[in-house]
């Protein structure tokens, strides 16, 4: 009996994503796109402050964050994340209705790894989440 294939047999633990958006329907859409077919574990946060609370209680493999949110917007969240030691390196995918070059440049400058303009298809969400988390082979 060979033991050499154990690494292939043992299932990898699902990647954990944090979805941050104040819109309930957006969170629900991301969850259904990523949880069942994508195999991710999805947690939700309502705004940047709750996202920081959850990120600090993580760990997460990727954060998907909106821009326009109450109390703490997505850009402020990313700025805070990048200066908070324990979570500074977490990959961030920003999703927004804002599509001007300057919006995207501002997000990049703050340390957003990938910026997607809404609406985003479920296929694209899964593809980019997989790339960002290393969940599939390139």
């Amino acid at each position: 009996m060979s033991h050499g294939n154990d690494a292939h047999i043992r299932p990898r633990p699902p990647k954990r994503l944090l979805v941050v958006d104040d819109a309930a329907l957006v969170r629900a859409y991301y969850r259904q796109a990523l949880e069942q077919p994508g195999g991710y574990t999805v947690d939700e946060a309502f705004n940047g402050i709750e996202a920081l609370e959850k990120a600090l209680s993580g760990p997460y493999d990727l954060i998907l964050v909106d821009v326009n949110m109450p109390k703490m917007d997505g850009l402020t969240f990313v700025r805070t994340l990048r200066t908070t030691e324990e979570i500074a390196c977490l990959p961030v995918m920003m999703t927004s209705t804002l599509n001007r070059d300057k919006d995207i440049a501002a997000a990049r400058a703050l340390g957003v790894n990938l910026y997607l303009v809404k609406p985003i298809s479920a296929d694209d969400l899964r593809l980019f989440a997989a790339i960002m988390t290393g969940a599939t082979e390139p």
Partner: protein
Amino acid sequence: MAMPRTGGDPQPAPATVTDEEFARFCEFIYRRTGLSYGEAKRYFIDRRILERVERTGVSSVQSYLALLRFDTTGRELEEIINSLTVNETYFWREEYQFACLANSILPEVVCTKRRGERVRIWSLPCSTGEEPYSIAMWLLENWAEVDQYDVEIIASDIDTQALTAARRGLYDARSVQRLPKWVLDRYFERPTSDRWQIVESLRGSIDFTHMNAFDRAQMAAMEGIDVIFCRNMLIYFDDVSRREVADSMYSSLRPGGFVCLGHSESMSRISPLFAVRRFADAIVYQRPAR
């Protein structure tokens, strides 16, 4: 269980909460408070909603949800949150926060203090005194540096009867049930077999003051606070009121000072003013040092 009624009552209480009503209720509570419930809690939530439908006398779950959303007094929200989160006060309630205070918050607070400088802790609201006395006892027993700093504990409430009870410091078995025997022996007297009273020296060392958290001038007079315990109060206020109180608390804190909320509460629904801090025992909120 809703029983069939006989005579005179045209609208018996609804016996079920539909899926859409459940989803709407959960989203409302999540958006409002941060409390998150899923299908696993369905039975529990349904029971609470139906109880409130019956108590308030509204005709349907749908009407109840409308009442919840548009009741400007906030009373119904208070009722339903109370029924979702067991809210009663007793000694060493949510003691993980006192552990956080002694293990993480105060060590950071005293870093910026000269030896001998005061540490000021504010219990708002203090209700009948269990919280401020708990803080005092916990620090005396568990904070390694307790002998090196003077600690001032201020305890405020809007309810003067609660304040009178707090000053008297007399409690029943339910209030003290979480306390270990040696704490009871050290800090309480037994005037009767079923009553425990805080020893006079401890009672005398806490400042009990009347305070309306909505009164900006009253709140503004409180300055230089290092830690505020504000547990299970803001969750009941409407959006504007709790933002105002959070703003007043921010002003009362020294730069770098902390706010501890109740375990069901999150600053994410209240105010953008504070930084989130995660310590080993708890998440708390901090007025940025600069």
